[in-house]
């Protein structure tokens, strides 16, 4: 009898210790489900309280709008720069021009739905930060349609007033000479600052690591560039105290 009791106790201990560990995992899974349900409810409520349609601006109207004006545009996602703390930063473009939406309200789930070409309507405020014109404090919704922009050759616009008219567009620069490559923290893992020249004049570029990551071909290729290399680059025409294209792809001339 005593042996039997001891065995029962030992068995009970093993079973319940095992159940304890497994059950903890179950609880976490349930918590995730609960969050999803809450999100679904919120989405449902948003549908009920849909606001009247705002007038969508043309790109020309957007350009003409004053800083701090409220703006509504629709355009297509061309590049996803970052998602953090329920805020998404994306490059947008349509056939008329480009936009930079900085830290739009966006759940992680919605961010996953944004792909190159996804059509979205963005409502926010026009702002300028160190020369970069952007849409801030924005919300968005996904709408029908798809468009992927081709890079426009902007080499001839370097140093001219034409360049800023294409701010945030996907552009390319051909036959650029590498003058300097430096890492933000003096080592790979963060942004890479790139100085390229054309006809003896230097221009600043950047490999923005939030946009490209560090394991990408563009990051690795730029990391290995040497002064004097000749490259063709493609990227988004970002602005920081002057043109500061965020490079998304690069080809080194043979």
């Amino acid at each position, binding site marked *: 009898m*005593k042996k039997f009791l001891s065995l029962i106790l030992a068995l009970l201990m093993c079973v*319940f*210790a095992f159940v304890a560990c497994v*059950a903890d995992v179950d609880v976490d899974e349930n918590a995730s489900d609960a969050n999803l349900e809450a999100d679904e409810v919120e989405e449902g409520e948003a549908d009920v309280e849909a606001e009247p349609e705002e007038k969508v601006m043309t790109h020309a109207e957007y350009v003409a709008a004053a800083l701090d004006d409220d703006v509504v545009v629709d355009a297509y996602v061309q590049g996803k720069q970052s998602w953090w703390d329920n805020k998404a930063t994306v490059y947008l473009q349509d056939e008329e021009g480009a936009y930079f939406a900085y830290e739009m309200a966006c759940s992680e789930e919605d961010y996953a739905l944004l792909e190159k070409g996804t059509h979205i309507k963005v409502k926010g405020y026009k702002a300028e930060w160190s020369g970069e014109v952007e849409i801030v404090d924005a919300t968005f919704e996904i709408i029908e349609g798809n468009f992927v922009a081709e890079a426009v050759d902007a080499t001839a616009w370097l140093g001219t007033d034409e360049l800023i008219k294409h701010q945030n567009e996907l552009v390319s620069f051909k036959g650029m000479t590498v003058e300097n490559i*430096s890492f*933000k*923290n003096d*080592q790979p*893992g963060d942004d890479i600052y790139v100085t390229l020249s054309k006809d003896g004049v230097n221009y600043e570029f950047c490999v923005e690591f939030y946009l490209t990551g560090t394991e990408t071909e563009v990051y690795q290729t730029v990391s290995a560039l040497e002064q004097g290399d000749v490259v063709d680059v493609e990227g988004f025409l970002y602005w920081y*105290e002057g043109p500061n294209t965020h490079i998304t792809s690069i080809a080194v001339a043979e």
Partner: protein
Amino acid sequence: MMKKLFVLLLLSLLVFSGCHGKKGVPDDGETFHVDTGSFNEEKNYEITFWAKNDTNVAQTAIYEKAIADFEELYPNITVKYKPYTDYRRIYNDVITNIATDTTPNVCITYPDHIATYITGGDTVVPLDALMADENYGLGGKKLRFVSPQKHEIVEKFLQEGKISGTQYALPFMRSTEACYINKTFVEKLGFEIPENLTWDFVWDVSEAAMQKDDNGNFAVNGQKVMIPFIYKSTDNMMIQMLYQQSAPYASENGEVLVFNDYTKQILMDVATHAHSRAFSTFKISSYPANFLNAGQCIFAVDSTAGATWMGKDAPNCDISEDNIVDFETVIMPVPQYDTENPKMISQGPSVCVFNKEDDGEVVAAWLFTQFLLTNDVQIAYSQTEGYVPVTHMAQNSSEYSDYISREGEDNDLYYDIKIKAAKLLSENTDNTFTTPVFNGSADLRSAAGEMIEIVTKSVRRGQTVNEKFIEGVFDEASSLYRLESIEPGLSSPKKADFGPLPTGAKALIISLVSVWIILIVYAVASSKKRR
């Protein structure tokens, strides 16, 4: 007898089968203990060090040199360095890594952030016992370097790393905020910089600078752009404005007091000057230094740790050379309400040690932490910006005294604005303050600044800012940073609210009760049989 012992052993195992904490130690700071005897000088340890720099590669180089020097002294310890340029990013990464038990060993951080880290239990190592350890403590016998003793760390800075009486962080560097002024423009506008800068003076000059000429250019600079007053950290702006008026912000035990009439008045003042566009912020417009150096700003408030970016001869600059204008830069303490009783915030990086399964690894991390307070590291790092070393040992060294005395000898190591910034803090250490640290204090800081951001943006967007609007801003800031969830009286270390008991725990309790019932029934039955 053996059978009874076996049953007792099973019971003991059953009771302890639910415990799976690191080292089985209680998770309150008071009884947490690291066994320094576990450190084996022959065993190899790899520790990770997450550090923030001010987008200043010289600082990265100093960290790397410190690591190399340390590894030379301790060949059995390898330090893996991960650089950051943003405290908030470190904070978020640490929070993420607490969940996966992959925190760094040593981390540059703010005490506000530690207050959140320790809500998860024994995540951060209390340093009191380690500091006092006779072998590996501050000035310990077995150290292979000259570490400062406790009394050689500036007491005020050391106190800033205490949470609920427990030392969770050591200071690494200290800075404060300063106002970098375009003196040339102030005088051009007909003003003279007073001995003590006041808010009224800054607002008056800023409004005067908004005058335009017939061509639509600002009269003072002849340019299309002029934002006379730009504040980098609006968190600090609100906090200092409140403290300078002895107004409520937060109690020591975590009561949120920021939503008060003083705050309302501050926001109304901000709205007035944001409306005229005489005031803006970093988040809205960009780095104050860029505008200052381009002659588009007169009062730029930023950290003393940003001094190398300020002024026409600044060694660091993000704007092109042809956009820099000629002007005289003056650096002063932040504007004050009461010049007889100046108050300014104390800030700067602190360093903490994260708990690990292996006490020896914790000691290895602690040794590196101490090494960051040695003179070579302290002096070199302080020279990268307007920082002040945190030890008397470094501050009183001949090397540091020589450095401070050579203000303006060049525009690099001896850049005058940078050395003046360091002096500003040294001369005002007694006028510095820190805010209470508790779980949620980092969010409260953010909310304080966010209110200034919201008001500034709203005014620029044509909204009317009045008392009712500000009540709405209070609600928005409170909601955005979940301030209502801060529980006063639970000053850290606060136990995390883990919610209802998990199913597994319930099962375990049921099993314990069941086993006890079986035992009692068995004991009673046996007793009856014997009779």
